[in-house]
C-alpha cells in the first residue's frame, strides 16, 4: 500500500521533459518519506523550512512498512500531497530525502537521507517484548538504546 492513485510519475518535475510542463522551475527535488499518519503529520512539521521557496519541489511516498497504514490515502488526499508510489520513488534520484520514522527499506532511496524523530525526541523502545516487564535486568545492555535512536 498505499498507492494513492499514482503508479506512474504524475508530477511533472519528475518527468524527463519536465521543462515543457512545469510552471515553477524547481532546481531541487526533495522526497518526504511517510510511514503512517503519525509520521506524516510530523514530517509536515519538518518540511516547513521549504515554505516560500519555489526552487524546491517536495514529493511524498510511503514505505508500506508500517502496521498502521490505514488513513494514509485519506491524509495524502486531504492535504493534497504530491504523492508517488514507493516503487516509483526507488527508481528516482532525489536531492534530499527526509524521514520522520525508521521503518522500511530507507537505504534503497537514492538521496542524502535526513532522519528525524517522530515524537518529542527519542523516548521509546520499539521492539521491547512486553513480558520483559521489569527493565532493570537490561541495564547495561546497549541494544535497546541503539534501536531507540536509529535502527
Amino acid at each position: 500500500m498505499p498507492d494513492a492513485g499514482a503508479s506512474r510519475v504524475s508530477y511533472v518535475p519528475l518527468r524527463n521533459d519536465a521543462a515543457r510542463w512545469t510552471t515553477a522551475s524547481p532546481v531541487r527535488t526533495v522526497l518526504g518519506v511517510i510511514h503512517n499518519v503519525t509520521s506524516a503529520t510530523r514530517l509536515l512539521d519538518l518540511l516547513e523550512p521549504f515554505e516560500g521557496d519555489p526552487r524546491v519541489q517536495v514529493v511524498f511516498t510511503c514505505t508500506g512498512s508500517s502496521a498502521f497504514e490505514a488513513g494514509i490515502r485519506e491524509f495524502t488526499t486531504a492535504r493534497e500531497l504530491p504523492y508517488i508510489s514507493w516503487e516509483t520513488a526507488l527508481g528516482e534520484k532525489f536531492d534530499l530525502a527526509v524521514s520522520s520514522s525508521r521503518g522500511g527499506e530507507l537505504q534503497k532511496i537514492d538521496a542524502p537521507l535526513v532522519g528525524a524523530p517522530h515524537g518529542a525526541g527519542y523516548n521509546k523502545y520499539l521492539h521491547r517484548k512486553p513480558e520483559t516487564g521489569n527493565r532493570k535486568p537490561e541495564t547495561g545492555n546497549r541494544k535497546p538504546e541503539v534501536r531507540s535512536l536509529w535502527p
Partner: protein
Amino acid sequence: MIPSAIVLSHDEQRERLRRGCPEAVPLSVVAGDPCMDRLRASLPFREEYRAALGLRPGQKLLVLTSTWGPYSLLGANMDLVRRALAELPSDEYRVLAAVHPNVWYGHGGWQLRAWLAPFLRSGLILPSPETDVWKAALVAADAFVGDHGSLTLYAAALGVPGLLGAFGEEVVAQGSPMDRLGAALERVAPDVPLERQLARAAAGRAGDERLDGIGALVTSRPMRSAELLRRLYYSRMELSEPEQPAVPRPVALPLPLPAERHEPVPPAAYADARTTAGGRLELRRYPAGLQGALTGHLPDPHLVAAEGEPDPRWSRTADIVLARPPAPGETFREAAERVFRGHPGCWLAAFAGEGADGCVAFTRDGGRTTARWAGAAPPHAVAVAASALYTMPDGDRLAVTVAGSSFVLERRTEHGAGHGTERPAG
C-alpha cells in the same frame, strides 16, 4: 542503514547515541524540535486558541493525551475519560481527548467513536487525528492527564500542570526525558476527586524546577529549529538558503470543530448546589449516567432529568423534571400534574417560560413560581433556574454562580387558586 544526517532535538541525545552507537555520532545534527518551537510561538495567543476550541469565558480545558498500545491512557485506563467527565463540573470544564493516530487507524475511527460514545454524548471533544488541533489544545489547556506519549511531554514542557493516568514504563527508554517525566508526575489516585488532584497539580506546577528541567530536555535549541533544519537541508542539497529568516510560526487556529450529532434529550445531571456565607448559590452539575464509584465530588446532589428521558433510573427518581411545553389546550398546571404522575420522585417540574430565558416551575404541593434572569442568563438557563428554585425556596432575588460567572434570578411565587386556568401564550 547509513543516513546522511540524524537529527537530534537535544544535546543530551547525542550522549545517549555515543553510548549506544558511537559510529553514528558524526552524522548527528542537533536541530531542536520544530513542534515545540511552534507551540511556544503560539503561547501569546492562548485566548484565541481557547475561543477557537469553543471555550466560554471562565471555562477550563482538560486535555487527555493518549499515545497508543496497551500501556497508553486509552489502552490501560479508558475509564479515566469517564472519570474526567463524571467528576469535573460540566458547565465549568471541557474535556478534550488527543488520541494517537495509531489508535484511530489501528482500530478504526468508527470503533473509537463507538467506544467513546457515552463520553461524546457528555461533551467530550475528540479532534480528528490527522489535524493539528492537539497543538492548539495544548496551548489552550488548563491541565492535562497523560501517559508516556510525546504530547504529555510537550504539555509538561509548556508548563501545563498535569497528572499521569497511565505510564508504559515497559516501553520507555531508561534515562530518557520521558522516563524522568514518569518519575516526576503524580499518578491519578482512584479514590480522590479528580478536580482536587488537578488543583493540587496546578498549585505545585509554578516554580517546579524538576518539571521545568524535564521540559528543557525537549529541545536544546529553543526557537531555532526552523533555522537549523533549513541550514541542514540546504547544505545537503547544495543550494543557497532563502534570504528571509526561518522563524517558527504560531500554530494555525483550529477551524470550528464539527458539532457532534446529539439526541434531543439532554443528559440527566446531578446538581450540587451549595449556599455560600454571603447567601450566594454555587451550582455544579455532573452527568448522571457517567457516575461510578463516588470519590466525594457529589456530597448532596439533586437529580435533574428531562421529560422523555428513556432511562428509568433517572426518570423515576429525578427531583427536578425539565418538562416539555404544555400540549395545545393544556395549561402549565395540567402539564405539571401529568409530569408528577409520570415521575414518582419529582418535586419540581420546570418549563421554559414565556421570556427567552424565563422559567415556570411547579412543586408537587401545588406551588407555582415564575422566574426570569435579570441581565444575562447562564447557558442551560432553564435547568440552572430550576436547580436554583429547588435549592432556595425563599427569596426574590437569587444570586447564582455557575462556572465562575455570576447571575441573578428574579422570582415571583404564587400560591393557591387563580392561576390554574392560565394557558401558555402562543
